[in-house]
Structure formats: structure tokens, C-alpha cells
């Protein structure tokens, strides 16, 4: 019978700024419980989109079923953009996700500009980097405080915490409010922003707005300090589970790559973004309407922990200090620590954004028209950015009229589904002695840790290269 990993239940009193939590810490060693166990999580809560966890453990401890299912309805975005004009594409694909809409627009614009040879200005790059930072902060804070924290505090949602830990909750909410204001000032709004277009922006923040943004960001740093201390006090409530996997993300020699770079991997050579298919090799599984991926291992991980493992040396100073305080070390193989890596990234995001806003203020904002292509002709392009949940690829092929001929999107959560399944395969045997309730909680927490964006990952389904012989309106580029 598998032994429950022992964990300490003490939190270091100096670090936790709040009084002792009344909730039962998750990491209390549970008594070994016998008998068969059945876990049926239908539509997992506190994740974006619909996913099921199905597990059966027999009385003797063997695992007879262990499945991560994705029954989300596919929406066919790669079909929706076919035949559409290049100025519309990013607005359509923005609707793949409400939380990382900015990221989809950026990857889309990069792909379009790559395909049609549109070169944007330094100012545009700077504004786009800021847009991505705003989104990263907003999304990570949502995940950390609203989706994960309740499990660590033994409650069902953040709502009870608004009564028991009002001060902490208000600090998280204030930081989120800044992140949404951040997105509004730079690109129009957090979800489906309006200001971005191929070639640049249609509207710009004023000097006053940027100055006030800088102030808001500076005021957010103490809130993040508080959050780091808070989490340092409860980090040992995260289950201990190690499973090394391949970590994939953008890499760059000069910075903690989020906006551009090459595709890096902990096990493979780095590649230019145009070769994304050599690493993302998508395939279908019967229990999922979303595709899975694998590279050199059975699966790979993308997202904050993958980025941290690849690029921690490039973090800004306060972020590095936060990582040390939280006990996050480069090479961490515990997926439950993805949330901790996200918190470190929040600090990094705010630190770097302050510098970038200051740079914009020093240069002065130029109200420049978006760059136009010198001529429209057929072309292919790939865009890749790191959105909160991991590396995102958009590929477009345009025809001579500047309309999409075919499109391909590889979503971070697609790339994580396989890793989630392999994690569950490894984790369930270790936990087979727990009660059903505790087992369900641990497995739910594992999936939640990934911050999956399931409806994003189910944007489309692909054929397995079957040749139907019929003339098709829509062609999917992937060949197996």
C-alpha cells in the first residue's frame, strides 16, 4: 500500500503576516484508508473550461482507471479565419480566450506581420511588451488568489476568505484592479482589446496615463511583497510530488523571454519559432476534444514553472528574491509549484513593466500610424509568445489578397494535457492509501496547479491526415 508522503504542518511564524488560519492545512498526513476508491470529478471547478478526472483504485491498491478527460465543445477557430482579411484575424482569434485575449492577439499579429512582411516600430514593440505584462499579472493573480488559494486554506472559493482574511483578499483584489487598469491604458481593455492592429496601434496612452500607471505599479510592489510573505507561510501546504518532465518555453540570451525568443527545451536543442511543429507534434486521444503534444519525452510542460526552469537566471532582482523566499529553485519538478512560479512572475512583471513605462515616458509617446505592408502578397508566418499558461503559437498562410488560406494555433494547455495525464498516472499510485475525499482533492489540486485554459485548448480539432478525396473549404496543415 502506498505511503502518504509526510509533510510538516508548521508554518514559519515570522513570515506569515496574518493570524493562524482556521482552515485545515492540506498537507496534514492522512490516515491510510483501505478499500476501493472511486474518483469522479465531473466538470472540475476552479479551472477555465470543462474537464473530468476519472480514477478507480482497487481494494489492493492497483489503479485500474486513471483518465483526464476533456469534453469541452470545439469551436473551430482555425476554420473561422479562413478567407478573412488580415486586418480582422487578431480580432477573431482574440475570442479563443477571455483571459489571455491579449496574448492571442499578439501571437496573431506577429504571425500576420511575419507573413506579410510588416515591420513595426520600437514603440510598438514596447507597448506590446507592456500589454503582455498586464495580461500576465491579471491572469496569474486570478489563478493564485481565486483558483488555487482556496484549496490551501481549506475553503471552496475566495468568498469565505473575504470574511476571514479580508485584508489579504483586498490586497489581491487591489493588485488585480491595477492589472486591469494596466491593460485598459495600453490596449483598450483586458478582454478582446481594440487598440492593436497589424502594424501597430490605433490609440496611445497619454503621458499622464503612463505616469499614473507607473505610480500604480510602484504601489503594487508592497502588495506583492505581502502576497509573497503570505505564500511563503503556507507553501508547505502544497503536496510534495516530483515528476521530472521536459520543460518547453521561449528562451533568449538577454531576458526572461515572454514576448519573443527561440523555442527552448530542458531536453532538446533550441529552435527558431518557425520550426514549432517539430516540437509540438499534436495528436488526438479518444478521451479529449483537445489535442495533446509530445516531443522527446512522453509529454512536456509549458507555463510559469517551465519558464522558470529555463530562464530563472534572467529574472529581475526582486523576483529572484521572491523565488528564494518561496523556496522555488531552478529545476523544480513539482507541478504543484507552478502557482509559486506564477507568483514570482508577478513580481518580475511589475518590476520590468515599471522600467518599460519609464522608457516610454523618457522617449515620449509618438502618435504614429500603424505600419503598412509595402505590398500584399502570399506568405507564411509564425508568431509565438508566452501567455500566462505557456508558449502559444499561431501560424498563418495568406493568399495574394491578404486573406487567410490556412491557419494553425497551438495552445499552451494543449501542450499540457499530456503532461497532466502522465502526472496523474504517476501520482495516483502514490496516493492510493488516502480516503476518496482526500484523493479527489489532491488530484483536483494537481490539475488546477496547471491553470488549464481548457476552452482555449479546444479551439479546434484536427484530422489525422485522412484524405477524404472531397474538395475541402478548409484545410488543416498538419500531417502525421
Amino acid at each position: 500500500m502506498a505511503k502518504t508522503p509526510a509533510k510538516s504542518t508548521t508554518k514559519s511564524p515570522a513570515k506569515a503576516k496574518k493570524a493562524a488560519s482556521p482552515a485545515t492545512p492540506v498537507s496534514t498526513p492522512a490516515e491510510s484508508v483501505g478499500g476501493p476508491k472511486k474518483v469522479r470529478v465531473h466538470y472540475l471547478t476552479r479551472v477555465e473550461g470543462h474537464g473530468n478526472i476519472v480514477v478507480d483504485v482497487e481494494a489492493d491498491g492497483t489503479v485500474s482507471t486513471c483518465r483526464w478527460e476533456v469534453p469541452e465543445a470545439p469551436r473551430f477557430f482555425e476554420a473561422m479565419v479562413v478567407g478573412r482579411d488580415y486586418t480582422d484575424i487578431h480580432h477573431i482569434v482574440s475570442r479563443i480566450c477571455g483571459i489571455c485575449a491579449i496574448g492571442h492577439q499578439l501571437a496573431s499579429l506577429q504571425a500576420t506581420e511575419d507573413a506579410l512582411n510588416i515591420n513595426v516600430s520600437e514603440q510598438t514593440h514596447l507597448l506590446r511588451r507592456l500589454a503582455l505584462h498586464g495580461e500576465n499579472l491579471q491572469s496569474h493573480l486570478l489563478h493564485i488568489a481565486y483558483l488555487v488559494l482556496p484549496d490551501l486554506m481549506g475553503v471552496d472559493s475566495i468568498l469565505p476568505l473575504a470574511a476571514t482574511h479580508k485584508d489579504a483578499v483586498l490586497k489581491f483584489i487591489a493588485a488585480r484592479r491595477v492589472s486591469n487598469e494596466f491593460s485598459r491604458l495600453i490596449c483598450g481593455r483586458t478582454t478582446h482589446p481594440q487598440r492593436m492592429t497589424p502594424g501597430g496601434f490605433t490609440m496611445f496612452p497619454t503621458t499622464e496615463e503612463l505616469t499614473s500607471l507607473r505610480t500604480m505599479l510602484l504601489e503594487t510592489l508592497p502588495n506583492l511583497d505581502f502576497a509573497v510573505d503570505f505564500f511563503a507561510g503556507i507553501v508547505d501546504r502544497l503536496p510534495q510530488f516530483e515528476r521530472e518532465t521536459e520543460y518547453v518555453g521561449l528562451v533568449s540570451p538577454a531576458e526572461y523571454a515572454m514576448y519573443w525568443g527561440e523555442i527552448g527545451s530542458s531536453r532538446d536543442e533550441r529552435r527558431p519559432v518557425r520550426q514549432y511543429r517539430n516540437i509540438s507534434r499534436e495528436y488526438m486521444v479518444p478521451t479529449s476534444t483537445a489535442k495533446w503534444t509530445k516531443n522527446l519525452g512522453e509529454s512536456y510542460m509549458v507555463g510559469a514553472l517551465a519558464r522558470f526552469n529555463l530562464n530563472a537566471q534572467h529574472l529581475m532582482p526582486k523576483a529572484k528574491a521572491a523565488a528564494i523566499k518561496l523556496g522555488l529553485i531552478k529545476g523544480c519538478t513539482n507541478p504543484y509549484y507552478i502557482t509559486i512560479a506564477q507568483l514570482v512572475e508577478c513580481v518580475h512583471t511589475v518590476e520590468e513593466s515599471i522600467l518599460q513605462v519609464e522608457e516610454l515616458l523618457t522617449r515620449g509617446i509618438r502618435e504614429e500610424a500603424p505600419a503598412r505592408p509595402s505590398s500584399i502578397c502570399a506568405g507564411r508566418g509564425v508568431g509565438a509568445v508566452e501567455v500566462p499558461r505557456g508558449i502559444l503559437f499561431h501560424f498563418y498562410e495568406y493568399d495574394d489578397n491578404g486573406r487567410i488560406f490556412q491557419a494553425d494555433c497551438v495552445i499552451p494547455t494543449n501542450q499540457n494535457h499530456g503532461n497532466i495525464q502522465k502526472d496523474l498516472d504517476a501520482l495516483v499510485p502514490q496516493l492510493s492509501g488516502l480516503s476518496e475525499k482526500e484523493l479527489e482533492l489532491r488530484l483536483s489540486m494537481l490539475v488546477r496547479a496547471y491553470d488549464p485554459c481548457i476552452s482555449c485548448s479546444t479551439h479546434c480539432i484536427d484530422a489525422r491526415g485522412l484524405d477524404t478525396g472531397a474538395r475541402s473549404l478548409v484545410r488543416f496543415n498538419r500531417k502525421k
Partner: protein
Amino acid sequence: MAKPKIAFFDFAGCEGDQLQIANLEERLLDILGHVEVVSFREVATGHSDDYDVAFVEGSITRPEDEIRLKEIRKNAKVLVALGACAAIGGINCLKNFLAENVYREEVYGSSARWYPTYAARPLKSVVKVDAEVPGCPIDKVEFARITKELLLGRTPWIADFPVCVECKQAGNVCRYEMGKMCLGIITRAGCKAACVSQGAHCWGCRGLVPGANLDAARIVMDRPGTSRKAIQDLLRFFLGDTGAAL
């Protein structure tokens, strides 16, 4: 007096509308003081089938969704379509203009029958909808107002005039004066002309305004430099479930 019970559900969509509700930030806590949230899968564990008001996001895109939606309709006294996908079909309807059988076979191959999908449609195509919060995404302030009106037992009011009114109030230069196209002329207001004010144009995400004059709109949009395809593309963004986009 017992607090009204509310629940949130979603179908095929991006969950951006539920995010706007979370983005109410401090105000969300105020609202939550007046209601009992019995189901909100995105942010809370726990579910009950006993609810008064159901907010539903996302379009219906397959037969099994209809079954789930009808169940929600049965349980709820008031069903509110949250966002464009639920209220008017939204961007999901773009795929309806492609030949379903062709891309289903292409996409699923011989397994096509195991992945049943059909043309995306709004909630009202399947069940009676009592109210809607329009937009892609919704405006969180409008959501708060509509929720308040529902809790007071009123039928929520949403604008019955076009975006042009709010555009003029905002002092925007008309897109048509700039040689661009804009669907504000036939789109329901309530967004304070947000997209025009942000330097873009109106895509019609809030749906047709009651009494929208589509014939006049087509005449206005048909001018030198614009193609029929461009007009059709613009109308198809969000109005795919109406006759406007044909």
C-alpha cells in the same frame, strides 16, 4: 428574507464574460453580499440545482448541450444570456458559413459520427431566455446594473437605440467621415461606444438594435472603395445568426 440564489454556467465560449464579473473587483464582494451563489464552477467548488437566477455564457454547438441547457431552464426561474455567444450566437457563428459536412469529414474523418457538432446558435434558439447581458465581452458596469434590476424583481432595461447616440455623446468623429465602415448604425447601444472610442470601429457585438434598418445600412456602407465582401465580412463577425450577414 432569504437571499436570491444565483448560478453560473457556460457552454461554447471563451469565459471572458465571467472574467468581467470577477473583474468587478471590490464591487463583486458588495454584490455577493446580496445573493447566495450556489454554483459558479470557474471560481467555486460546490453545486446545487436549487437556484433562482441562472447566468449562462457561451453558444450551443452540439446536441448534448441542448439537454444540459434545458435542465438549467427547468431549474431556474430566470435565465439570463450572458454575453454575445449566449445572447446572439456571437463569433461562434462564423463557422456556420462553412459547409458543415465538408469540414466535419475533413476534421474528424471516419470518426465524424463520434464528435457530433452542429451550427452554433444562441440560447434563445433552444430555450426561452428571460434577459440578456449583451456584448463581447460584457460591460461589467452594465452587468452590475442588470443584476441589481433582476434582484429588485424588474425586467432589466437595455438600450433600444443604436451606438451612434453614445458615439455622439462621447464626441467621437464618425468612422464614415473617416472613410471607414462601422456597424454602430445598426447595433444596440449600452457600451458607451467603447470600441470607436478606443480608435477602432463597431463590430456589432451587442446585436442588432430593435428596428435596425438593414437596407439603409447596406446603402450607407456601399460606397466606392468598399467591396460587398468587406461588408459581408463585417456583418458576419457577430451577426451570423441574423439575416444581416447573408
